[in-house]
């Protein structure tokens, strides 16, 4: 478990370093995820080392968003003033994105499925 956390935090740290250093607008943790994926692929990191720690974090992923959400309260005034454009744009656009993404992907997947393998 500790080894798993060491690997995950280590990759986040290097991702953070790379993000700062290069100035690319990609957060360090996303770079860390890509690096870890590459390291797993190359066999430098074994899945067994990190499986337990990753499972623990991912099964509680939703909890970690709660403090960010509570931050909404600071902008209560602005949100209340422009509630109509904000709520309609947020709700409608979220459903539009799911429909567009899902339909495009499933349409292409059906075509690709016949040729693949």
């Amino acid at each position, binding site marked *: 478990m500790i080894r798993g956390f060491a690997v*995950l935090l280590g990759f*986040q740290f290097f991702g953070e370093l790379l993000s700062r250093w290069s100035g690319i607008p990609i957060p360090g943790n996303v770079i860390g995820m890509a690096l870890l994926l590459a390291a797993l692929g190359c066999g430098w990191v074994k899945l067994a080392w990190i499986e337990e720690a990753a499972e623990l*974090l991912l099964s509680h992923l*939703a909890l970690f968003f709660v403090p960010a959400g509570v931050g909404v*309260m600071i902008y209560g005034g602005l949100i209340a003033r422009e509630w109509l454009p904000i709520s309609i744009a*947020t709700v409608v*656009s979220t459903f539009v994105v*799911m429909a567009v993404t*899902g339909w495009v992907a499933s349409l292409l997947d*059906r075509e690709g499925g016949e040729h693949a393998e």
Partner: protein
Amino acid sequence: MPSEFFATPLFGITLTIVVYALAQMLYRRTGSLFCNPVALSILGIILLLLACRIPYRSYAVGGHYILFLLGPSVVALAVPLYARRREIWARRTPILVGVAAGGLASVVSASGLAWLLGGSHDVVLSLAPKSVTTPIAISIVEKIGGIAPLTAALVVMTGCLGAICGPEFCRLIGLRNRVAIGLAVGTAAHGIGTARMLEVDRLGGAVAGLAIGLNGLLTAFLLPMLFLLFS
């Protein structure tokens, strides 16, 4: 009670975990989608802080510790991706094209609708990256000139909506492909949607995790250029 008592890490951490545990119990007991633990916990904590007149600043002292765990969790998303790498690689074209279409639809529909409905310049800009994961959304909005904390709030609201009814909505509009459903929820509702997808379906959850990164990258490159074009 002296107010500095609440400005300790213990208060924010305890409040978050206790409220979340209660919300989870309620969610399991009722099985109602509207009792989504994240949305319910956020609402409950805000109401409690307001009722007790505890400033957000004090809560955030402990809240930051919980938020910190989001970092290694994003790195950990490499695990389900790696475990499902063959299924995902075989579908690389639908995944890439699907996220690109969804990412573009997100920016255009969110900012466009807010603009049509008379939203202020700040709100229109702050809404543009609302489907992108919080850290990327904030760096994007700083570049195009919206209000970063407002974007963070909108990102979380979007995520809750996608987590509450994303998988159900996808089935309602006739989607049956697990990769397509995971991709749709991940592209629209980033990490909060992914957390729900991981509960519903492991393959869908892995793809949703991938969609967070892909949509974030795509929007980070595309959006500043799009705004240069129109301004």
